[in-house]
């Protein structure tokens, strides 16, 4: 099936079996290995990407449903090739340890911060409810997102 979609701002044309998972297309033919596979069944949020601006689990999205749509992966959150406020806050404030859940956490946080530039801690927790971390616990991740939100407001930085 011919599929044309925009990934991180670049139009990509693919010819693939339609039920192949978006996750496998990103990590395989598109070479975007920032998105990780965790459980593969929608439980952990590790493979989260933005689909038309909404956070989804790429392991549960058939590529055939992505024709004409816009995907943003963790690579797309970079600003001029370097981590944006979210990535910096995760690194600087202990939000990332082993790093496997971090891309999904950042995607869910990005979706939140676009809609709510000044979220409460409770709103951050709700937004990250579908993302599991087995290393740090959640305090430092929530803290990192709140710090990134403050930095973005201060710097006038906006998401992609």
């Amino acid at each position, binding site marked *: *099936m011919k599929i044309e979609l925009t990934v991180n701002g670049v139009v990509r044309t693919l010819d693939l*079996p*339609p*039920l*192949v*998972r978006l996750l*496998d297309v990103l990590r395989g033919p598109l070479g975007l290995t920032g998105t990780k596979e965790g459980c*593969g*069944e*929608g*439980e952990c*949020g590790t493979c*989260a990407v933005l*689909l038309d601006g*909404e*956070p*989804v*689990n790429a*392991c*549960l*999205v*058939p590529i*055939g*449903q992505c*024709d004409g749509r816009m995907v943003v992966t963790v690579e797309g959150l970079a600003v001029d090739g370097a981590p944006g406020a979210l990535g910096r806050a995760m690194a600087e404030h202990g939000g990332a340890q082993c790093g496997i859940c971090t891309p999904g956490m950042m995607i*869910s946080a990005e*979706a939140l911060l676009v809609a709510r530039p000044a979220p409460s801690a409770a709103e951050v927790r*709700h*937004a*990250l*409810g*579908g*993302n*599991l971390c087995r290393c740090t616990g959640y305090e430092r991740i929530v803290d990192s997102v709140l710090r990134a939100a403050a930095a973005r407001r201060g710097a006038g930085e906006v998401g992609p």
Partner: protein
Amino acid sequence: MSVADLARYELAVPRALSEACALLAARVASGEPTLLCAGGTDLLVELGMAPPLAAGARPPLCVDLSRLPELRAVERLERDGARIRIGAGVSYLTLGRHELVQGALPLLARMSHDIGGPTIQARGTLGGNLATGSPAADGVAALAAHDATVVLTSVRGERRVPFAGFQTGYKRSVRQADEIITAFELEPLAPGSPWCWRKVGARQAQAISKVAFAAVAELEGGRARRFGAAMASMAPVTATLPATRALVLGTPLADLDGEALDRAVAADTSPIDDIRSTRAYRAHCARALARGFLRELGAAV
């Protein structure tokens, strides 16, 4: 796991409901197996966990329902007593944010925030939740509490089924193979009326309910003139609690007896021990949730 088999499936992408119905009718008439896919949050998991396909086997055709505009609308039906029609393909994320839903069906909006997490809410749909037939489906308990009408569409036209008549057994329903669940029609809750959504799970997000309780009520003169309630994970189908409803509707709230309420709830449910919970804990939760809501309504139970 047979994720590799996903590469062997074909996907039909109809752009209008009539096209989808015609395709489904033709498939059913020729006896060819067909799968329907809305948000894919159950289907992709099931296909991934299914045993590997035999070497020469042709997998069922998958029909994509996500491009059908007819399944995506939320509207007030002015011609029909201001009932609200919700497309079966509306995502939980949209449902939870929708102004009309928040105002007229607050239980439905609140429940939508408790489905999986935001990544599941962005893809999961009410229609899919009902179609897969899980008795643990939170969205379906909310539909049942509102006595929603299920709208089924096929080449033969539209058919309306009251919720109480839709499910016929564990993962079985009156839906015919050529019918698509297209919408739900719900009676708005009178402004300011009490409602309850409680989900008991291992954690707040990403947990399948041990028990979920959905209820709405409209009160007048010390009685409930409207009382709808349902429970998930308490029976082989969504429990619609007929004895409990009859007791509450037939008794002035001040006269309602707690033990009689417990007996009605017990008669309406048949909880089991499974991986998520125990029969005893579920029965306890069911009694406590029903009593809790009735206390909110003013009953001394």
